[in-house]
């Protein structure tokens, strides 16, 4: 019974539909402001609903994510942004009472289809978590783990090449090249998070999901990660959930604002941060409510 995973998931505090006031509010934010569609959609979500038991955590969200873009998801705590992110590589499967409906497509193929293997999906859609969580193994083994279980390397030399490339891409190689056999847990917080990114990109995913990747890091480590995200955009599509609006403004091309499980507004980051159209978006990014 994986209750421990359930506890780690974001608490879904959205939607209690019985309440008249909230119902009114839901009416107000049910329709998303801004353009949902993009021209070259890597992922395409339509009418996504997520329930935790009877709690409606995500309500009819439509969103496209373009290839090679960084899309930031912002919103107050419990707005469902993390839940939505976790739907995109089916990490919510591990939560027992979680139910997902609607269509979520990766390159036009529904990822919740019965024929879709979840292991294969997670190889294509990698994930970086809020708290740096390297395995209690060596740095090398951390990065090599993904390629090993998927059998991506034919021999040791190939595996080593994958590890080195991944560490280089995550900007960590220069710092750790002399101690690849040392435990990954001995690195600093920022280095650990970059190790986790290296681990994610070692399987060469198409999409990388980042769930508040910098919330446990100091500003300099954060800046490094943000720089790295910008670099990674060349090869990967990135969706990032963040509590820091400045971070969303800095790293993303598009920004999506979630509220009470609804996608309230989505648009170019530059526009969202200077002239958001929806009042809730405005209130949130100007710090008018918590």
């Amino acid at each position, binding site marked *: *019974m*994986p*209750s*421990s*995973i359930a*506890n*780690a998931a974001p608490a879904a505090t959205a939607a209690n539909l019985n309440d008249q006031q909230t119902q009114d509010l839901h009416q107000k934010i049910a329709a998303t402001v801004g353009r949902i569609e993009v021209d070259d959609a890597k992922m395409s979500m339509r009418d996504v609903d997520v329930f935790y038991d009877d709690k409606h955590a995500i309500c009819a969200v439509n969103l496209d994510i373009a290839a090679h873009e960084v899309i930031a998801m912002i919103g107050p705590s419990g707005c469902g942004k993390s839940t939505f992110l976790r739907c995109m*590589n089916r*990490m919510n499967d*591990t939560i*027992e009472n979680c139910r997902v409906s609607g269509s979520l497509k990766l390159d036009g193929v529904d990822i919740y289809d019965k024929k879709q293997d979840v*292991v*294969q*999906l*997670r*190889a294509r859609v*990698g*994930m*970086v*978590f809020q*708290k740096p*969580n*390297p*395995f*209690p193994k060596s740095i090398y083994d951390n990065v090599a*783990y*993904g390629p090993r*279980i*998927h059998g991506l390397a034919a021999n040791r030399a190939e595996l080593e090449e994958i590890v080195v490339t991944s560490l280089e891409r995550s900007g960590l190689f220069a710092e750790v090249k002399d101690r690849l056999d040392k435990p990954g*847990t001995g690195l600093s917080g920022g280095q650990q998070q970059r190790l*986790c990114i290296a*681990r*994610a990109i*070692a*399987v060469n995913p198409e999409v990388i999901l980042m769930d508040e990747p910098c919330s446990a890091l100091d500003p300099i480590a954060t800046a490094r990660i943000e720089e790295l995200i910008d670099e990674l955009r060349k090869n990967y599509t990135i969706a990032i959930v963040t509590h820091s609006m400045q971070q969303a403004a800095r790293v993303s091309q598009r920004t999506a604002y979630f509220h009470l499980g609804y996608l309230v507004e989505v648009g170019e980051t530059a526009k969202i941060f200077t002239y958001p159209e929806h009042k809730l978006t405005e209130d949130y990014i100007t710090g008018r409510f918590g």
Partner: protein
Amino acid sequence: MSNADEQAAVVDIVTAGLKRRYAAERRFRLFGLLSVVLGFVFLFALFASIISTGYPAFQSTYVQLDIDFDPAILDISASPGSEELSAANYAGLVKHSLRELFPAVKKRRERRSLYQLVSIGAEYELRNRLLTAPSFIGRKEALWLPANDDLDTFMKGGIDRQLPQENRRLSDQQLTWIDALLEAGRIEKRFNTVFFTSGDSREPELAGIKGALLGSFYTLIVTLVLSFPIGIAAAIYLEEFASRSRWTDVIEININNLAAVPSIVFGLLGLAVFINVFDLPRSAPLVGGLVLTLMTLPTIIIASRAALKSVPPSIREAALGVGASRMQMVTHHVLPLALPGMLTGTIIGMARALGESAPLLMIGMVAFIVDVPQSITEPATALPVQIYLWSDSPERAFTEKTSAAIIVLLVFLVVMNSLAVYLRKRFEKRW
């Protein structure tokens, strides 16, 4: 009142109460210290009493006799077969040599009390000697043979010479013989190998714990082989795979309840199921192991689940996030991190099983068994049961045997617990 005044007043109030608060703290610390000291005192008293009564058992008294392997005394032919040797009159050898030592003793009753000084184990020893080396026949050898338990007790200071004759186990006459033997340097105390190499016996000087030790060992092996894999598999399934439902809740509650069930109940269960229904051999370590498995399983499952729960969920997420399957997640990441905790739980469960006697009584492992068991299906007894049996025996010499067996049991428990601590320290990983 200005704010500064209020603040000053607060300081005064706090200062006034400080003394009382510190006094309470000191009182508490004193109580804590006292209870720790009390605990140590009791522990020390326990160890002191057990060790002081038990240590003499590790020594036993031997008497040197000049044995004449005369075929005439042995009542055998000059070149006997092994069957003939087995049936020879070894008691006669001992008696003959004692008669030679004390030619003055003529009366039948006196002679008998003289013969009592040497253990009947001496005959077995002589037989073994001849069976392994028949060439001794016809030769005369000075041999150290085990003394009777009364002589042994006397040598260890257990018999008071000042008491009137009818109140002690050795007569005045026997004491004069003993003095004579001592004078001649024919009595000696040696390390008691018999204690570790033989099974139970009615004669204290011949009784050993090897049978009980092996019985315990076989029982524990059966318990370990069954309960470790079953317990860990159950824990992993319940913790990582089973979906939460009413059934898993029921199972969880029942496991917790089983852990609290008195062990004798498991014994009754074993008797009813394993022996009466499945017709397994009575008194066998196999059944004992099965019963103890039932008893330790809940402990192991609970400890293993706790160990699994303590593995941070972020590790699971990380593994799933790179595309590991559930099984890979468990075997590659969760299990290695949880294993030290599981091993600790298992060893503690095993230590409990080692010290358990009540359920074994139920399935007949309490019988008087002289033979050292050779397999898990042969009748055997276990260490704690052996202790119970000896503590019940009337002979004075069994008191020290009881304590000695307790010492051995405690040593094993300490070793097992130390192993648990060592394993935890050795394999524990920080994250």
